[in-house]
């Protein structure tokens, strides 16, 4: 099992941040590795299922995921029902002086899906993806805020 963690700030209130990050339909918008996402049983909520496809380190992988927890502005959790390997994810939100701090946690059991790639490297790949994606998202939100003011 690999545990990847990362915290990032978004210049918006927790509720807005939650709506952008925890809604699976938004994943292709802000995650570079996410190719597509499709809700399978209605809007995002606890018990919602969705199908999501990633392209990462040369592999294209599709998962069916279920949302385990969905508390707008506070936390969302999800896990894989079906896919090449299993993962569990959490986004936790807390208000801060700059907007919202998002704590991302990702537990992955990749098996031998990534071949000889060391787990330490996979962890870095995952963290780096979130790091870059969240930085871009934050910048985009800052620019939008700037253009409104």
């Amino acid at each position, binding site marked *: 099992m690999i545990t990847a963690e990362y915290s990032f700030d978004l210049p918006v209130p927790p509720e807005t941040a939650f709506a952008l990050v925890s809604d699976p339909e938004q994943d292709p918008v802000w995650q*570079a590795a996410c190719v597509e996402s499709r809700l399978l049983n209605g809007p995002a909520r606890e018990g919602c299922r969705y199908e999501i496809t990633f*392209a990462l*380190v*040369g*592999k*294209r992988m599709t998962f069916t995921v279920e949302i385990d927890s969905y508390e707008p502005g506070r936390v969302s959790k999800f896990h894989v029902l079906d896919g090449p390997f299993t993962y569990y994810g959490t986004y936790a939100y807390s208000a801060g002086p700059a907007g919202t701090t998002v704590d991302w946690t990702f537990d992955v059991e990749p098996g*031998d899906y*990534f*071949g*000889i*790639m*060391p787990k*330490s*490297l996979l962890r*870095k*790949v995952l963290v*780096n*993806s979130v790091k*870059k994606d969240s930085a871009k998202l934050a910048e985009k939100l800052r620019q939008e805020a700037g253009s409104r003011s």
Partner: protein
Amino acid sequence: MNDTAPGATGSPATAPPRLNAQQAGLWFIHEADPGCAAYHIVFGAEVTVDAESDAASRAGRVLDDLMREHDALRIAFRPGPDGPVQWVHDSVPVDVRGTDARDLDPATLRARVRTDSRVPFDLSRPPLWRLHLYRTAERTWVFTAVVHHAAADFWSLALLISEVRSRLAGETGPFALDGTAFAAYAEEQHDFLGSDRARALLDREAERLADVPPGLDLYGDRPRPPAPSYDGGSTPFTVPAEVTEAVRQLARDTATTPYMVLLAAYFVLLSRLSGQSDVLVGTPTSGRLQRRMRDAIGNFVNTVVVRGEVDEESTYRQLLGSVRARVLEATRAQELPFPWLVRELAPPRDPSRTPLYQAGFAWDRLPFLTDMDEFFLLEPGPDAGLTVAGAALRPYPLPQQEGQTDLWIEMGAERAGAYAGVLRHNTDIYTADTAREIAATFVTTLETLVGRPDEPLRDLARGDARQLAGLAEWGTGPERELPAARLPDLVRDSARRTPDAIAVAADGTEWDYARLLAETERVAAALRAAGVAAGDRVAVLAERGAPLVAALLGVLEADAAYVPLDPGLPAERLSYMATDSRARLLLTQTHLRTSWPTSLPTLHLDDLEAGTEGTTPPARTDPPDTTVPVPAFTAGTAAPVTGESGLGGGGADSGGRQVPADSPDLAYILYTSGSTGRPKGVAIPHRALVNLLLALREETGFGASDSLLAVTTVSFDIAGLELFMPLVAGGRVLVCDSATAADGAALAARIEDSGVTWMQATPTSWRMLRDAGWTGAARLNVLCGGEELPLDLAEFLTAGTASVRNVYGPTETTIWSSAGPVDPAAGVDIGAPVANTRLHVLDPQGRAVEPTFPGELWIGGDGLAVGYWDRPELTAERFVTGLPAAPGERLYRTGDRARWTADGRLLHHGRLDHQVKLRGYRIELAEVETVVKAVDGVSTAVVVVRDDRLVCYLVPEPGAEPKPADVRAAAAVSLPQYMVPSIVVVLDELPLTANKKIDRNRLPEPAVTSDAVFEKPRDATEITLARMWTEILGIPEVGVHDDFFDVGGHSLLAVRLSAAIRDEWDVDIPISELLRHGTVAELATIVRRGGQDTPRGPIVTLREGGPGQRPLFLFHPFGGTVFCYVELTRHLPEGRAVLAVEAPGIENEGEAEISVEAMAARYLEHIREIQPHGPYALGGWCFGGVIAYEAAGQLRAAGEQVDLLFGIDSRAPIEENIPESSDDATILSWFARDLAVPYGKTLDIPAELLRELGGEAAFDHILREAAALGVLAEDADRAQILRYFEAYLANGIALQTYLPEPNDLDYLLLRAVDEPAGYGPQLGWDALVKGALRVVDVAGDHNSVMYPPHAAVAAQAISPHLGASDDHS
């Protein structure tokens, strides 16, 4: 005082005229050393102008006119694609400078003028001549004209002076100055050099100058620097009028010229100064062979090389005949410009010397301006002067053109019927005192030769009585009366005075004098009980320690002589010494007994009571001991020297000891290297040993409170001083164990811990200490001897210790014969003779040699050995009585070349024969050759010393293929380690001289060969180790499986390697470990193991840089390793350090970065520790060029400058260049491919196959395939290769996710032109680079561009951009 200098700017130039080869040669010298003033032609005069005279303003107009009229005065040079290009500028103002010098005293003014005349020209800025007026009084000026020789020669300057005079006088000048002929001359020369005639002349020159000696070995006062500085001095001299007349007369008698007579005398002088018979002298010719060139302005002078052969058996008249012919031969080729000749002949070059000749002789005599002769003398007469247009001119002589060669004599001028000349010397090697002595000696030599032209040269004195006068005083040591007591008696005296004082300390054991005396007497008693009697020899084989000292003294106490045996020597050599000395008994220690089986009866120091073991001591069957003191012979008649001459007589000594009348009274027999392949024993009497000990005690002032750290093996005679001098003085000797003595760091610690006040060692050992980081010890007094003391080491030692004495002496004259304090500022000499010792520098006829000339050093006095043990012929050859310089004295012939300086210092200039001193050991090269020739499969062999290493060149027997390692192993069976060649080179044949002798000068540079399969370094640790090896061993490259000792390493270089490893990784590798694990690969393993606790940074030093030079940083390519840059670095210009940044994941698991931004940020942290601020130079191959781009962007954002940013076939990180997404199998396939690239091999493993195999199996498949292909070792470290792959994969991920914004940076792109993959002409960089994007095409494809031969091309493309570098500190 105001200085003014007009700007010298040229207007746009007209078409460039060709320049001649002499000009080009001078331009190249100037390019190599832009500060060089050795080619400035200078004229000086003092001018007083009448009040009403308008000479000054008219002179200015004349000069303006001349400048305008003559192209030759407006030329300059610029670098072009094929060498320098000459330009004539349309309009150039005259460069006239002014200085108000009315407040300067004459000496200060002269110094100022001299300094100004040496201010270098910028050859690209006309005019290349200038005038300077120094106002010294209201109407008086000192005036100088300075011309760079590349623009004009002395003849041209004289033409201009003549022309100026005529125009000022309102007259038409005698010459029609031609300021354009120089261009036609160059064209004609160019055409001529392509002609058959020039080729024929060249062929003749090649034949005439074949096999010239590599250089003129002038023995200087200072060690010759690696590159000449062109700094010099001048000494004027005068040949007396009667000698001048004799020269003229001899010229007439021999149908020669005064020039030839003088040149012949110069040949004799140079031959005697150098000891060479084959002497080359450069002599200038005017180059104005055609009449129309007589009035031309420019530089036409050419130098020809006259090759003289001086045979001391011939007469001067005979030599003159030969010189005449040789001058004519040389002059025939005067149309061949010297720089061109050197290029065509390509003689072996020594960068420390000028090519072909190092001494010059010029005969300059102007056929015009005869009323100004005195103006061209360095010492003009007091009344010299003339008036021109109302201005009174007086000579103002200035030295010039100094330092072009080691020595240069210029003559041709004459005053009052006497030739006047000047000797110019290079101050790199000569002091002014010596130059004056040489100038005086030239005059003396000339006087002698012209006075006695029909006597053999060898019978003619080199100097005069004045020069001989000081020799006797300088060469005689203090006379002291020697006591009759022997060494044990002297030690007994000390024991009586201070029985409780510590005498010997070793290994935690301390013996006071009482104990030492008791042990000595115990040993002596045991020896006597064993049957040892006076005159017997006793072999002593013992570990270093107090018992060894007692053993040696005990043997002496028993009236026997000891034969010291070092347990570390090969058994064969030990046996030989014991047998040859006819030792009666072996005195040893129980634990050493088994290491050397011998039939000698043995007495164990640690069990003396047990008595002798083995056979009963043989009955004394030696020939009587009178076989030892062999006769010595005078040069002509044999005159036996009895043993008594070395004994001081037989009979009863002062202690009542009965010495057999026929006993040689020997103290010891010490074996040294011998030319027959066997060492030879030197028999030293008690008196000599006592004399040395008392003399050195007096010289050093060693007292009872002093202590000495003894570090020298007992088989080296100087150990005697270390072990015994402290005991004679009542002081303390600390016996250092062998392992500590051989390990610089350990020895430094011992010096510090022990608090000793004295230590004696060879320069090699002192250097070993320095290399190990020792900085000196304030209380330590140093004795340094056994080999040449280098100046830098002398400076180091004198700076860090209480005192330093250089000591000199051969074994045959008992340890040291001279000693003296070292003053590095005065240079290094070998000191003055010690008490009761006389030093003589003699010529081959046994006559004293005058100061400045080299000769052979002979030694007489109480230190002389009895002779060589059992070698009467050799003794007779080396110990001689009756030489002309000291008819009644027995002298030992050292074989060392020495020279007295003019002020009485004795300088040592190496060996005269093939005996060498290496790391303090005396080695007969012939002995090593004999041993190597005896090895199976070796036909012949020659051994030389190169860079402090013994190098053996051998020719195999037909059909044999001896391996160097086997030859070394075979030699080591019978030779001590220090005599085993470090490098063995196998040749098809040895180079021979014309006389069919082995030409040692033409032996090739030793190309180190190893029997190991060559494999390049594979990681940063191995790269760093390989770099250390190449730097320490001075070889271009090493493979990771080469053994340090097979490729030229030896124990002292191992010390340096150990120190370098400690500095780099803080890992201590003892020398013993280096001996066992001597390959780069093995050492890397030890380093990695030892360095685990201190993970190192990602910066790998590929090459050290000069002080103050900013480094070039190279980022790793795809994969993270940096060994790809090794070849590139070899071809980048020297000076700047080359530091490579490898991926951290290469060395440490889990460290790989997967974003370019993070990589760059992390790498910059390390880079800025080395270079905190810009400008930075960054670059890399492949992915390295991408990291460099990101790093440059980050530096720029931080406000830093980047002055060089380059990528070698790096594809820009843009969407279009990102390869299609690739999984781990694909990247693994690429990884396999790239493993093979450095080896020029191909390893294609389809990704599909790897995908199918999956994970570990796929990886293992790659390892097997790579091993089968020979690009990985069978036992390659899997974990290490896996780390490589992790870094590779991380790089791949990083590259796929890096899409930077354009940046305002300049970028130099080296594009591999043979790369088939198309990424556009600028590889996409035009989308990112907002600054200047320069694209340079280089040979090779994407991979081969970094490996031979293409890496050199890439380096060449980068080199111009590395430019000047300033200090970043």
